[in-house]
């Protein structure tokens, strides 16, 4: 089943791309990477939005957890009220888990396609679809610059690139976390940050993933490392783009709320885009707002603005 659903389609996709792109394996790999990123785009966007959203309502979540720690039923109800679904935190891992089969598959496929033994070539012949003429494709060019794409990079450049691009990508695709000195200013705030699962996950991923993948790229085939680098670069561009879009949306929403608050709006247009405000948790939020990050602070600021406008 694995072969049928993962290995054979990836193998044939790469061979087909290699064929139509003038027998250039790097080009084929690049197009394949772009295609897989596009395939994962909806999941990635959802993950990014979900992370930002969860981070923004983190004070409310903690307050509810604190308040109803002995009443899980009520806790769930309160979570629902503020639009938080704990299962969504798990779904945030989906893009990463969804890319795992491609990653594993590509690893095996590169061994097959670029493997320099008769046995791997024989295995390859057993997997090629009838529409692809392997006779015309062989030998598959596996050299690119100083690299043999079927072997690890002897100059260590790719592992470094994998680490750097993955680190930058994780930075761009994760919601911003509070600076260390901010947390240090408020001990309680620092503890809350550490207890925040999303932030903890984000922060751990920012460091462990690049280190791990950079480390293991030392023994991966160069082709796979190039896939990582390309994928990360696309991820960085995607992260930047999504961040801009979300900031623009946030600004538009804040502006609409302010307009409504000061009565400049006729009501109809803003009412369509308005998001229901979470139920206020005055006492707890008051304390937490000191330690939460910029986005929460800006939320509080806009609330204060609205209050003053009402006055």
């Amino acid at each position, binding site marked *: 089943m694995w072969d049928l659903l993962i290995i054979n389609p990836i193998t044939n996709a790469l061979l087909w791309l290699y064929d139509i792109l003038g027998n250039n394996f790097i080009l084929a790999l690049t197009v394949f990477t772009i295609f897989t990123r596009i395939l994962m785009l909806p999941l990635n966007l959802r993950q990014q939005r979900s992370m930002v959203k969860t981070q923004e309502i983190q004070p409310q979540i903690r307050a509810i957890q604190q308040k109803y720690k002995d009443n899980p039923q009520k806790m769930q109800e309160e979570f629902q009220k503020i639009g938080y679904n704990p299962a969504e935190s798990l779904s945030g891992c989906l893009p990463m888990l969804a890319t795992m089969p491609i990653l594993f598959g590509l*690893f095996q496929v590169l061994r097959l396609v670029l493997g320099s033994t*008769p046995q791997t070539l024989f295995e390859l012949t057993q997997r090629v679809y009838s529409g692809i003429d392997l006779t015309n494709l062989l030998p598959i060019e596996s050299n690119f610059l100083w690299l043999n794409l079927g072997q690890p990079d002897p100059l260590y450049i790719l592992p470094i690139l994998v680490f750097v691009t993955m680190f930058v990508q994780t930075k761009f695709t994760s919601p911003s976390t509070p600076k260390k000195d901010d947390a240090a200013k408020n001990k309680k705030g620092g503890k809350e940050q550490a207890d925040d699962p999303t932030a903890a996950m984000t922060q751990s991923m920012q460091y462990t993933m690049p280190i791990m993948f950079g480390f293991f790229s030392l023994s991966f085939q160069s082709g796979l490392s190039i896939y990582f680098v390309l994928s990360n670069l696309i991820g960085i561009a995607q992260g930047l783009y999504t961040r801009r879009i979300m900031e623009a949306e946030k600004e538009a929403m804040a502006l609409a709320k302010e307009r409504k608050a000061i009565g400049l709006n006729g009501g109809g247009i803003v009412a369509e885009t308005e998001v229901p405000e979470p139920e206020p948790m005055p006492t707890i939020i008051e304390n937490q707002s000191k330690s939460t990050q910029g986005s929460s602070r800006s939320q509080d600021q806009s609330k204060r603005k609205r209050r003053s406008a009402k006055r």
Partner: protein
Amino acid sequence: MFIAKRPLSRLLLLVLLLATLGLTACSRSATAQNWPGLSTDGENLYVAYGSGVLGLEAASQDLLWSYKPASATLFFYAPPSVENGRAIVGDFGAAQGLFSPQTVVSIYALDVTGNTVQTEWTRNDLAKDRIVAAPLQVDGVAYVATADNQLLALDAESGNELWRFTADFSIWAQPTYYEGTLFVASLDRHLYAVNAADGSEKWAVELSGAMSAQPIVNPDENLVYAASYDREVHALDIDTGSEVWSVPASDWVWSAPALADGTLYFGDSSGNVFAVDAANGDVLWESGVHTMNVVTGANQNPPAQIKGAIQASPVVQDGVVYVASLGNEQSEEGLLVALDAADGAELWQATTPAPLFSTPVIVGDTIIVALQSEVGILQGYKLETGDLDWSYQPPQASEE
């Protein structure tokens, strides 16, 4: 390093860790697979079977010598070349550790006279990719083809490099020597004629498919035969490389044809065996190795229709063509078939416990096949009947 404090983070990290570990674990095992390499000097057998190389007496199957390098990550699959008590072998190479990913491939000269092995010399600075082809020893020179496109000429005594010839892609086929010329088939689709004295190119001919089969020289017709993945066998003029004739097969021709009594025999990946006139390429007969009479694993009756691709070269002796086939893919059994050289009629067939990728060898009245099987890496079958004569499994390290 930041340590996650939540189960979710830990789970995620665990998944990532397992994934990367899985990938790297795969990388170790995946790079070292091929079928065993088998050769003979007419009396003894020499086998490269993965972790080591060994020599044994064919008649008694007594182990003569065994060579295993200290590193457990090194693998041998190229058939050893043994001449005058010196075995030349090449390994598949290995990275020198996680922080030194450069693949290092070694060529070894072993003194195998008597029942001991002594390393005469080792060169690990000549090749950067696997040695798939059997080395060739002629007049004190060892010719070693590598998967990093090189044909190396080494002094067999000292290991000193005499010259090197570079093709455009990997060389998987053993070169063929004939009167001062080496004929080299490469995956780059070229057949090269190389001057054995200095490595200069005499001529090169591009065919329409890659080649992994050793070229075969026919001095009587002044032809050199090249079997190709372009589904043809080409006959080229020895002196100029110009094509004299070609004969089509049904599928890829992986291995070298066998030349005997003016007839050329070869098999293709669809399980067809061809006999053609070596002079003009006229097809004398064509036979399919598609039917398996005895399928021990599946116990099928009536006989199974199989694909039975042919990867190995046929072997011809005393009017019989012996063909090793991959056999039944479902039951993972190989097939050894004896055909009448005159008309291709099947004389007998034997089912082997694993597909047959390597070319068999004949010693005395036994045909020996090399396998990737737990039953044994070698099996001997009687030439007359195809009955299993013996199986051989190398001793474990503790028994040696």
